[in-house]
């Protein structure tokens, strides 16, 4: 949305300055072209500048697919604005394409009057044919509806770097910063944050630092001096709550949350895991924080990872694991052991497209049914889902709080979109964090391994405690004593007790909140990573005067106690999910409401407009 326009001198000429409320930029190129880095730099700079930001990296599944091919295209999209941004945006305003393959895979997302900046040097016959173009799109008119800027980025970059001592391929690797420089000029961004970053990153390689500095500036001055650009944009700082901020991805936030929970409870954090996209970054982040008594264990597979977590929990650590769908499938049996042993632990599933290996780098919400029912026997477990990258921090703390309070495994359903997406995170005041109190029984207490408290939690007696030696395992137990027990009545009693214990968690979680009016025509009920898109769409529809509200579940088992009440206050209920409809039958069955589903299974998040259109369709507009 254009806020205001005026003209200004740029170098020796006049340019029109267009003020925008928000904008969406996407960098795309070969996976070796440094697009993630360029995107991250623009994100950081915009955040430091005071904008709200929201990002969506889009990696290829192959790390190094052949250069120039469609499979090797990597992209990074970000929205920045002077208003609250709930998603990285639907359609792209400015697309930077470093080669024909990148152009081909991304042009469909460019707004019909968007700006396209291409690296003209890469449009060679060879690259065109690798991308499947039979004629050059820069010449054949198919891009006419866009504002196209053809820039010989490779030549200009080489020119900028030529006296630095850098040679050959190393020069080529700097070209992302030339493109970034052009964008910095286009949006009037300060270069200092990136220059500082270059100096701290390449401090020990002054040649590399110099080349990157020169090409960034060259890009910036290219924008300023060429006659090509007649318009530039400004995006004013957002009105954001005062405080200190940093940018966090969902995975980083999750890692910080796990460390924080353990620290609040004065416990070591044990993280046993096996690498898998898109969960591995949690491990990477944690491995950097050993000084917080973080003990990471890279196991031989997910079965071992989960089993080690059960062992660590038995021994008294705050134990967690992270994986994605295929790994969670392998963990199933050991999760069941955790449920049977009634030990506290946190299991993070960063969901990706399935089934099987599926779409490793793409997002999906199709593991809810697995979380609820993906184990043998009646094996209930608390299930939570963060709703934004920053919320991963809070949910990780809440997961551990509930795990120790109720002596149960807790599963957290994140997803690829939250995990890799970033947003500004207001650094919390440490004194405002929730308390996590852990009590271990000691000798003298009249100890019984399965004697429960009012909430039905059993005592967490840990090895090393004199007099409390006891044995646990996966076989059914007698209540109170914990002895192996095959009695039919006891089995039913234990099954019901384990379920009741999870239900009791409803007393310890926040009620479901409604965004908008408390009652009305239509309620959108979402869960997990779709929060941003749903809320933005509902906000837009409300602004148009439609009777629509939304509610978002962060707790899927148990659900907040008032869920049924909220649902019944609306005439229609729509459940958008990035799956075939997994929450839907639960809501229909449990609350007997005629909810309908809205589903997308393309490995991509919802666009705001898709949900808005559906709202209008349902309200007959």
């Amino acid at each position, binding site marked *: 949305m254009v806020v205001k326009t005026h003209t200004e001198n740029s170098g020796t000429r006049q340019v029109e300055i267009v003020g925008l409320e928000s904008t969406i930029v996407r960098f795309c190129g070969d996976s070796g072209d440094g697009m993630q880095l360029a995107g991250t730099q623009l994100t950081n700079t915009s955040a430091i500048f005071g904008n709200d930001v929201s990002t969506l990296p889009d990696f290829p599944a192959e790390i190094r697919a052949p250069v120039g091919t469609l499979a090797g295209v990597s992209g990074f999209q970000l929205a920045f604005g002077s208003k609250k941004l709930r998603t990285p945006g639907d359609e792209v305003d400015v697309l930077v394409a470093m080669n024909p393959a990148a152009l081909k895979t991304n042009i469909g997302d460019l707004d019909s009057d968007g700006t396209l900046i291409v690296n003209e040097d890469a449009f060679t016959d060879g690259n065109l044919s690798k991308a499947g173009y039979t004629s050059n799109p820069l010449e054949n008119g198919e891009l006419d509806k866009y504002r196209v800027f053809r820039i010989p980025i490779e030549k200009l970059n080489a020119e900028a770097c030529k006296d630095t001592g850098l040679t050959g391929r190393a020069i080529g690797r700097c070209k992302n910063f030339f493109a970034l420089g052009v964008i910095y000029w286009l949006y009037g961004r300060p270069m200092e944050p990136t220059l500082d970053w270059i100096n701290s990153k390449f401090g020990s390689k002054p040649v590399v630092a110099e080349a990157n500095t020169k090409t960034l500036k060259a890009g910036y001055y290219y924008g300023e001096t060429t006659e090509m650009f007649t318009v530039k944009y400004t995006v004013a700082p957002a009105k954001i709550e005062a405080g200190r901020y940093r940018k966090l991805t969902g995975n980083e936030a999750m890692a910080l949350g796990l460390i924080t929970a353990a620290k609040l409870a004065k416990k070591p954090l*044990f993280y046993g895991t096996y690498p898998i996209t898109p969960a591995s970054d949690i491990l990477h982040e944690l491995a950097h924080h050993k*000084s917080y008594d973080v*003990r990471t264990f890279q196991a031989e597979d997910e*079965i071992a990872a989960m089993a*080690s977590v*059960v062992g660590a929990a*038995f021994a008294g650590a705050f134990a967690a694991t992270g994986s994605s769908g295929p790994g969670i499938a392998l963990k199933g049996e050991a999760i069941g052991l955790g449920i049977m042993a009634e030990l506290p632990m946190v299991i993070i599933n960063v969901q990706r497209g399935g089934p099987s290996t599926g779409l490793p780098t793409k997002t999906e919400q199709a593991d809810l049914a697995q979380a609820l029912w993906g184990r043998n026997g009646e094996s209930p477990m608390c299930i939570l889902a963060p709703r934004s990258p920053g919320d991963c921090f809070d949910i990780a703390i809440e997961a551990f709080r509930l795990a120790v309070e109720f002596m149960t495994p807790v599963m957290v359903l994140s997803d690829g979109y939250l995990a890799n997406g970033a947003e500004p995170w207001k650094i919390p005041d440490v004194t405002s964090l929730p308390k996590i109190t852990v009590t271990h029984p000691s000798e003298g207490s009249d100890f019984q391994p399965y004697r429960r408290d009012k909430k039905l939690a059993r005592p967490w007696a840990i090895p090393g405690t004199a007099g409390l*030696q006891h*044995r646990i395992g996966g076989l059914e137990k007698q209540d109170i004593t914990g002895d192996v027990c095959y009695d039919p009545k006891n089995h039913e009693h234990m099954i019901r007790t384990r379920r009741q214990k999870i239900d009791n968690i409803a007393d310890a979680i926040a009620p479901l909140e409604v965004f908008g009016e408390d009652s009305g025509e239509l309620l959108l009920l979402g869960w997990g990573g779709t929060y941003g898109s749903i809320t933005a769409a509902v906000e837009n529809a409300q602004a148009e005067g439609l009777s629509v509200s939304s509610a978002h579940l962060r707790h899927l088992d148990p659900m907040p106690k008032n869920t049924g009440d909220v649902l019944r206050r609306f005439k229609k209920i729509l459940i958008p999910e990035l799956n075939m409809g997994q929450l839907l039958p639960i809501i229909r069955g449990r609350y007997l409401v005629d909810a309908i589903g809205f589903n997308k299974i393309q490995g991509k998040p919802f666009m705001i407009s898709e949900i808005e259109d559906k709202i209008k369709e349902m309200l007959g507009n």
Partner: protein
Amino acid sequence: MCADTATVQLTAKDFGSDQDVRWCPGCGDYAILSQVKKVLSTLGVSRENTVFVSGIGCSSRFPYYMNTYGFHSIHGRAPAVATGVKVANPELDVWVVTGDGDALSIGGNHFLHAIRRNLNINILLFNNRIYGLTKGQYSPTSPFGKRTKSTPVGSVDYPLYPLSVAIGAEATFVARTIDVNVKHLAYVLERAAQHKGISFVEIYQNCNIFNDGAFQYATGKETKNDTTLFLEDKKPLIFGGEKKKGIRLNGMNPEIVELGGDITEDDLLFHDEKLAEPSLAYLLSRMHHPEFPEPMGVFRCVERPTYENMLVDQIDDAKKKNSDASLENLFNEGDTWDVK
């Protein structure tokens, strides 16, 4: 004040729990249980610092019968559960009890990796060369051609040998003993407990219900002297009732020779537990009945830093470098900016 339990001399009985032992009468597991309790009572360890972790199988019932902390986990995963226990609290004495199916079929992967990491835990493999708990199917250690419920005309897969696997996985301590030789069993258990690092012990265990007599050759009065060979560190490999037979190297291969005449002890292969390279231990692990007497005792015992010690060292180092590991500092790492 609570009594200092560690200084009170505990008896074997003190290490037993109140649970009824439910193995079949005559099962080799009984003898092992009683030796483990006895050895623990002599080591001066405390019950509360001892943890037994097992998988699933007859043998894996073991933790229930010990008055220590215990975890009867899931099939094959005991080494991984034990890893979590040990890393969470390196002060604990951790023992894994497993079977041939548990360790080498379903748990083969965890078995290898727990060994290569050299955690200071003790793994006792009760090898009865059969699946006991599931009532008598052949196992990965059953001899080729074994007829069982699931192989009525004989198995067509080749067995593997637990010690060879453990040595291949870089074990720092490997030993073999046998259920009925209680003295030797106690000796090997004690050595295993004393070793700092992974201790792997294969225990020949008779399943008198589904595989009775599997080790008759090695236990029978008539045969045992010729079918087993007791290893002693730095001593020549000698066996036989009259100690007249020995093992000599012929090129790369062992051969049985009669002592006397022009063959003296000096011509024999000498055992050495502490060789850096595991070649000798591996060669010994490849000596099988009926071609050779099967070695009993400690095959290999070498020192190497343990996983948990190195992990704790890294944490201590990090703590020294970041002496103020506060949440404030954690949150404020990296690029921050202020909004006024």
